[in-house]
């Protein structure tokens, strides 16, 4: 357990908000700038994920750099249909990722099952049946811009998360990266 998590657990029981806010700001600033995805490409959405990470769409300008090793990554991008046969492998890779970790469900197949929703004996209808999904991106497949927008939404989520479990705070904290008055959770200036 990381030291910030220990601190967060200690502060769970109604401790001083001022200290927590500063620690939150530091933790969120360090976590939210550069989310490295684990590209869990199980079907055709992986092509868009690959396109998003190469030079034309350039994922790297968001600090997002796909790594093939779950132990290097913060966010699992579920790109493609997940079958019952694949489900244990996806779960295992998710379990291998270090905390804190997030999940982006990319494409219709991972949101409700997509075109495989009806009459299927082999497809998992919705990745949220076995993983805690944070951001859903619809589309069949979504364009690379949609995926990048999903990552920006996730960054917003990460930056408003409190290390104290289950709590959220307004967007704007002490550290740079967030312009004053942007506390509504809207547009992030790159």
């Amino acid at each position, binding site marked *: 357990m990381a030291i910030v998590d220990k601190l967060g657990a200690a502060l769970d029981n109604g401790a001083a908000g001022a200290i927590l806010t500063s620690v939150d700001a530091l933790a969120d600033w360090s976590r939210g700038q550069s989310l490295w995805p684990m590209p869990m490409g199980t079907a055709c959405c992986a092509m868009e994920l690959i396109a998003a990470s190469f030079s034309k769409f350039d994922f790297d300008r968001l600090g997002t750099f796909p790594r093939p090793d779950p132990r290097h990554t913060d966010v699992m991008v579920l790109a493609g249909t997940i079958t*019952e*046969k694949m489900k244990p492998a996806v779960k295992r890779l998710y379990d291998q990722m270090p905390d804190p970790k997030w999940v982006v469900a990319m494409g219709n197949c991972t949101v409700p099952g997509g075109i495989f*929703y*009806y*009459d*299927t*004996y082999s497809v998992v*209808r919705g990745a949220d049946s076995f993983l805690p999904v944070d951001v859903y991106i619809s589309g069949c497949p979504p364009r690379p811009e949609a995926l990048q927008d999903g990552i920006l939404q996730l960054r917003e989520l990460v930056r408003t998360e409190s290390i104290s479990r289950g709590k959220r705070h307004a967007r704007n904290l002490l550290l740079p990266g967030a312009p004053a008055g942007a506390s509504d959770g809207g547009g992030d200036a790159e």
Partner: protein
Amino acid sequence: MNLDELQHRLSELSPVLAPFFSLEFGDAVVGVSSDKLLETARELREIGFDRLGMVTAVDRGEFLTLVYRLQSRSLSSALFVKTKVSPAEPHVASLFEVWPAANWQEREVFDLFGIVFDGHPDLRRIMLPDDFDGHPLRKDYDNPAMIRRPDYI
């Protein structure tokens, strides 16, 4: 090699198989009964059909049709071998010893249609989870966990 030439060559190379040769929708087909399948396969391999491209099956209701697609480099041609299998007793000889490529292909047919290939070295499911119940490409397959498509979609 076109189909007439193939038929001619087949009657030259293998008079035993020639009566089973036919044309279906512009494809060359050798239709045999399931107990003759293994010797037919050996014969076809002997005369030059050295590549097994595909194994699949069709559920026709009263029977299952097992379909093999063979290709030949020496004859520059391809043909289908078809055989009928009873759905109640779905046993047929494995062609693994003739074409090793049959290994995974027959596992797939076993997985989805439930046809048992006698003599197969490792007949397990290949596409579906090991604990899956039933053979889903059979017409009579039903799974209560499936959500049925409504009529209006």
